[in-house]
């Protein structure tokens, strides 16, 4: 007579949002303290918003907490039916006793009490009896008690005497969460943006939202390709966002029969190919396409296609899919902890599951280190000279006594003078120390990470990651301008690092107090350490750089060449390296040794002789005379070279 509780309807499977939080909280409270918290609890909402789910969830939760409890769920109709049957059998008293012994009674669809006077009286009696004996009663209806037509005043006051809560229509975020959870429960995955598009539809209730999801799942199951946002609009009959994009051939095929000749032809060919391609090849190819579409590497499957008759194709596909599923769950887990790490391509290669597991384990342990300094900038390749010796000495001091001597150290100078090099070099040296965790990154990346963390609701995790660091090195601090939240976070980190004598190093194009858009409290802290300037390269530095670059290029270091190049008017090490590059390339193109004379020719006019071959021209000379002049005779899009036909003129 009574309905068994649906095992799927628990609080764990109920997606909580602003619209239903009160009902869920009340439900949980009632389940934890049946009969004493809110009695009766009356839940009302429009159809399909989760009343039944919450009712059953209360039953499940109460059962978990106290297994001996007698819990009954039934709809009002079932109650009425049972009552009539009992009366007909002359068992009215037995019926009443039976329900009075229920510890938690869950009655659904109470709105059907309308025009049932005798049932209203019966329910009133039962409610009173249950309340008196300390048993819980929970009722659900599609409207509040006072709005149930023709309801006995005493019942209204009785129902309203406990707690009356409603469940509203879920907001967009809750709808997305519901869709994600349901899709996951059903083992379906969709391209990014698909579920969000569905959620944007104003469904009046969750049940219809589920209907939309079901349609998508069904459609995707028969479709060649994972459906995209545009296809979603089509499937759900939503207005198109853009002009209808190309839909996959299968998506189009249902309508093809009645459409034009080409569609008819296409559907015929589809049938023919379907018959002709060996079934296993089609299965493999479809799997390849599906997973490629989702961004997974499919080399393992593609190899199957190269074979004539591979054994155990389905097993191979299944194993592949299992690996993908494994990667997906690892990626999802990692995405929660570290959204950026989740983008690692190891999570997209089913041949590297073990590696992905190791990566995930590392992140799970919270050991995911913040971005480290780049190995491309070792300290010994930083060229010293009078113009940067202050900064370099400060760097050496910082490396010797991190956090103690200059904290923070701010390296300022124009672009191309080696600030980033020096920053990373210090980072590399600091990282060599025992237990050191050096965070070294661009300010832009720092900002991006924070945004991702806010987006993923993981700001605490993000903070913790940097707080663990023994040194924080940020390149291009001027990019903080206008980023209030990042400045706030940096300010807090700043204080913690200073308090803990942990080193902070920054680079900036100019003195911090001249940078715009930085908060005063940040500027004063930056100025409070050492601001070490790197100025335009002096001659000694230039010579040192030149020697190094020429060595690297295996060019003999003639004194005349060194003198000439060192005297060139340049403003940064980067541009010096650039002109050396130009000279060396020109020499190679002309097949001549690199000399001061040649450098002069290259850099001061006297253009290097043009050659028809070499790096800079394609070698194709287009004649303007002759050839086909008429537009109609021109071939604008040639077929692939393998298909090209060359006329044999006779």
């Amino acid at each position: 007579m009574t309905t068994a509780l649906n095992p799927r309807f628990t609080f764990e499977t109920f997606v909580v949002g602003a619209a239903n939080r009160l009902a869920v909280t009340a439900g949980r409270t009632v389940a934890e303290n049946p009969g004493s918290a809110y009695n009766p609890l009356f839940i009302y909402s429009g159809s399909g918003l989760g009343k039944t789910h919450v009712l059953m969830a209360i039953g499940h939760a109460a059962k978990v907490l106290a297994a001996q409890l007698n819990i009954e769920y039934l709809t009002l109709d079932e109650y009425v039916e049972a009552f009539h049957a009992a009366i007909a059998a002359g068992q009215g008293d037995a019926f009443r006793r039976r329900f009075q012994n229920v510890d938690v009674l869950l009655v659904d669809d109470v709105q059907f009490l309308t025009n049932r006077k005798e049932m209203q009286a019966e329910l009133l009696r039962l409610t009173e009896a249950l309340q008196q004996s300390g048993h819980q009663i929970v009722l659900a209806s599609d409207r509040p008690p006072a709005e149930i037509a023709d309801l006995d005043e005493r019942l209204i006051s009785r129902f309203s005497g406990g707690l009356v809560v409603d469940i509203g229509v879920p907001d967009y975020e809750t709808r997305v969460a519901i869709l994600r959870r349901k899709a996951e429960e059903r083992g379906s995955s969709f391209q990014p943006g698909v579920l969000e598009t569905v959620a944007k539809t104003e469904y009046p209730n969750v049940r219809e939202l589920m209907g939309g999801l079901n349609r998508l799942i069904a459609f995707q199951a028969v479709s060649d390709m994972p459906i995209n946002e545009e296809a979603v609009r089509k499937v759900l009959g939503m207005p198109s966002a853009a002009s209808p994009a190309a839909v996959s051939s299968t998506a189009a095929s249902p309508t093809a029969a009645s459409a034009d000749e080409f569609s008819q032809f296409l559907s015929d060919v589809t049938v023919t190919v379907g018959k002709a391609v060996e079934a296993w090849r089609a299965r493999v190819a479809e799997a390849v396409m599906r997973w490629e579409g989702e961004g997974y590497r499919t080399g393992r499957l593609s190899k199957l296609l190269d074979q004539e008759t591979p054994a155990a194709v389905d097993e191979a596909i299944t194993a592949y899919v299992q690996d993908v599923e494994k990667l997906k769950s690892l990626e999802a887990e990692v995405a929660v902890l570290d959204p950026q790490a989740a983008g690692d391509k190891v999570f997209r290669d089913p041949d590297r599951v073990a590696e992905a597991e190791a990566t995930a384990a590392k992140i799970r342990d919270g050991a995911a280190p913040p971005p480290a300094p780049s190995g491309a900038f070792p300290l010994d390749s930083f060229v010293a000279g009078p113009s940067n010796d202050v900064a370099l000495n400060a760097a050496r001091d910082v490396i010797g006594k991190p956090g103690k001597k200059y904290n923070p150290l701010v390296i300022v100078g124009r672009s191309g003078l080696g600030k980033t090099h020096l920053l990373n070099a210090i980072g590399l040296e600091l990282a060599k120390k025992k237990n050191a965790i050096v965070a070294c990154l661009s300010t832009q990346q720092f900002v991006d990470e924070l945004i991702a963390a806010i987006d993923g609701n993981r700001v605490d995790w993000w903070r913790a990651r940097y707080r663990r660091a023994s040194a924080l090195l940020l390149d291009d601090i001027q990019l903080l301008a206008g980023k209030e939240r990042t400045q706030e976070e940096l300010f807090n980190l700043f204080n913690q690092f200073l308090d803990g004598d942990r080193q902070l190093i920054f680079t900036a194009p100019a003195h911090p107090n001249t940078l715009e858009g930085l908060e005063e409290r940040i500027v004063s802290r930056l100025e409070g350490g050492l601001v070490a300037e790197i100025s335009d390269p002096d001659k000694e530095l230039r010579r040192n750089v030149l020697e190094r670059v020429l060595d690297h290029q295996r060019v003999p270091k003639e004194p005349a060449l060194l003198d000439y190049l060192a005297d060139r008017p340049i403003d940064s090490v980067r541009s010096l390296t650039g002109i050396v590059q130009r000279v060396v390339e020109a020499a190679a193109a002309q097949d001549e040794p690199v000399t001061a004379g040649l450098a002069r020719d290259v850099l001061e006019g006297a253009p290097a002789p043009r050659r028809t071959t070499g790096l800079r021209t394609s070698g194709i000379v287009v004649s303007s005379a002759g050839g086909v002049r008429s537009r109609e005779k021109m071939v604008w899009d040639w077929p692939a070279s393998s298909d090209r036909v060359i006329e044999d003129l006779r």
Partner: protein
Amino acid sequence: MSLVNFTTREITCKIVYYGPGRSGKTTNLHYVYGRVPETRRGRMVSLATQTDRTLFFDFLPIDLGQISGFSTRFQLYTVPGQVYYDATRRLVLQGADGVVFVGDSQARQLDENIESLQNLQSNLLEHGVDVRTMPLVMQYNKQDLPAELILTPAELDDALNFRSVPSFPADALHGRGVFETLKGISELVLKRLATGSPAS
């Protein structure tokens, strides 16, 4: 060029429209071109003389999208019909997966049809292909002309279709029979996927 490439999961069908001059090969391609959605076709390359006679060849690539996991493309070519372009015809025929022989239904063109059919046979042989192994369909074009000028499909079958390959009456100018022909040749060509003997 093979019909199917399993590594790249591509099916590429090269179909050549063959036949005597002025039989309507280019007209076939033009009609197809007009019916294929823009997103699915490449630019039709046509090299024609002032009087619209095909000088070199026409080329129309069609992308049919993903079919059974294979990205499927058709390449439709025509050959120049005039006798003196035999070298071009031979080159276009190279690597064909299927041939549509477009015959002119006019009674006075029967000899040209026969000559062109023989030319097809000999050109295929030049590529080492026996015409009996090449997927081939016949199209009897210009069936819209007055009955006294043309031969019926049955008469043309008797005269030309000694291999009893599928044949289609057509009026390419107005589109009748064009897609039927294309479908006919496609089926023959794609059946080869199953037998695993790629045309080359």
